[in-house]
């Protein structure tokens, strides 16, 4: 009995806290499907609803704004087909009030917000840029990290400890410390405003090297001894033993790298200026400035910019959480 009580209490608390964690997302989604006037009215919190007046003009129905009613007569503004006030809207006075009717719809989803956000800003380009940068960065990171980690874990050479500690200390320096000098440095290369600036500095990742090194060290020595007796080269051991036995940790590193590039913001914001080069996060930040009053469009843009990552996360939730737990603790 006590156990059942304890379990229900646990679930109750988890639901309350969990609700606080997801409520911003639920609200984002519902707001992204509302009309702006609905949002401003501040009544439909989670389920978009819509209320508007319809003028039945001899069998033809128009969406209208009811400006005022005086007795039996109404003053209305006729809206266009999208339910917006067009600049040259028409005002009718003296319409019989009985012809104007209040319509209430719930739920009423306005998926056109997504279309409109896409129309306003070239989000397709931003998506393509982000994908391009993320994938090339990932490929670079995997190649350089596997090789460097292999040297650290399995090979002997002079200066190994020195280089190892050099890497370790560089990892401790946060990005904001060197973002200005990197800007100056990349400018000397004439690399500002290029894809290279977004990719090349990030194709070596110290954290990934350490993650791989840890794993490569744990592989049993006997495998390497046996391969060595069979005349396998050092490179052969890497491709035939190490990599096939490291699929899990490679997947982990790939997830970190992809999420990291997808979400990185300060670097691309600083290093690029041309609109064609904007990655998703930078594009979103410009949209945030340009459309600051168009709440529903902003919410639509936020929704579709986090959708791909959330999708990947939902599909591989178990593996991703395990990766974070493991990599976090080993460090």
């Amino acid at each position: 009995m006590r156990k059942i009580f304890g379990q229900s209490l646990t679930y109750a608390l988890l639901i309350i806290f969990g609700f606080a964690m997801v409520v911003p997302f639920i609200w984002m989604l519902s707001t992204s499907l509302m009309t702006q006037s609905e949002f401003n009215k501040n009544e439909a919190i989670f389920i978009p609803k819509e209320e508007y007046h319809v003028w039945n003009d001899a069998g033809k129905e128009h969406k209208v704004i009811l400006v005022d009613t005086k007795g039996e007569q109404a003053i209305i503004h006729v809206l266009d087909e999208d339910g917006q006030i067009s600049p040259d809207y028409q005002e009718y006075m003296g319409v019989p009030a009985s012809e104007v009717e209040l319509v209430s719809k719930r739920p009423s989803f306005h998926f056109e917000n997504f279309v409109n956000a896409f129309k306003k800003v070239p989000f397709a380009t931003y998506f393509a840029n982000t994908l391009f940068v993320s994938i090339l960065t990932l490929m670079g990171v995997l190649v350089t990290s596997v090789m460097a980690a292999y040297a650290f874990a399995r090979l002997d050479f002079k200066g190994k400890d020195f280089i190892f500690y050099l890497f370790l200390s560089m990892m401790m320096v946060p990005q904001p410390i060197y973002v200005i000098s990197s800007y100056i440095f990349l400018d000397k290369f004439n690399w500002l405003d290029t894809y290279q600036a977004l990719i090349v500095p990030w194709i070596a990742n110290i954290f990934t090297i350490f993650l791989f090194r840890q794993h490569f060290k744990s592989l049993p020595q006997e495998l390497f001894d046996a391969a060595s007796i069979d005349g396998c080269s050092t490179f052969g051991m890497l491709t035939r033993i190490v990599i096939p036995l490291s699929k899990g940790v490679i997947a982990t590193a790939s997830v970190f790298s992809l999420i990291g590039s997808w979400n990185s913001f300060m670097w691309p914001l600083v290093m690029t200026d041309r609109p064609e080069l904007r990655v998703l996060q930078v594009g979103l930040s410009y949209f945030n400035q340009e459309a600051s009053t168009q709440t529903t469009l902003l919410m639509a843009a936020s929704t579709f910019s986090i959708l791909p990552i959330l999708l990947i996360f939902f599909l591989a939730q178990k593996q991703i959480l395990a990766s974070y737990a493991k990599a976090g603790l080993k460090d």
Partner: protein
Amino acid sequence: MKTKRKIEPYLYLLPALVILLLFRFIPILMSFVISFFDFGVTDIGKFLGFAHYSRLFGDQEFWQSMMNTLWLVLIALPASIILPLIFAQLLNQIKWLKGFFRTIYFMPFVTSLVAVSIVWKIIYSEQAGLANMFLQWLGLEPQLWLAEPRGIFTLFFQSLGVQIPGWMGGPSLALFSIIIMTVWKGLGYNTIIYLAGLQNISKAYYEAADIDGAGKIRQFFNITVPLISPTTFYVLLMTTIVSFQTFAQIYMMTDKGGPLGTTKLIVYYIYEKGFDKLDMGYASAAAIILFIVILGLTLLQRRLESKVNY
């Protein structure tokens, strides 16, 4: 054969080494060098010695951003440790829907800071924001949130009818709003780390405590809390380092660190000096100070850890 063996390891190391030396090591060194020079956009000017540093010392805006950042760290740290430990403890006890709840708690962490900043900016909007709807639902006065420069203590005591001096005001409500969002964003990561830590604690301790008749709450404070302390130190360190680097929220949610500079954090200050005012030497000096602070705190925590841990 012999020489080949000597060179070979370096060949494996070479790609990573070249990239890291070029794009990490040199820029880090350059940061130090630039901080001693007058530096416009791209051309190096006069050698100034420590002039930038002494200018920083007298720069009120710099101190304000440092103070703001300290408030963020001071408030975010306890919340980012206590809440995730509770969440992890709860998640560790359930049998059904484990994956579902973990996914929910981790969601904010994987989503982009830029996108959720937009969402939270709208949550905090005065007219139709969720935050004010919530206050209304609780029967409380609506707030200005991100537009409120007055301190949270000032506001709190004011609601009780007590006036407190300005220096006791604490961080502005605007900054506090940013802190809430920042904590929310990071909770999931810390929860997962704690969850892994909890699973490493042997069940035998709890069984022994059960036999001795120790209640769940005593078990939590006498077994879980001490045995999880290595994880706590890790979480403490990561949260501190990440908090000091807060940038995107300020860029996205505030008007250049406003109102009245109360949300200007140190990284935003560096960004503004470097890329808006194009005073890159000065900005680098501020960056170096930030680095020294972070390094100092990291070393301090490491020392504490070696003293406390079993």
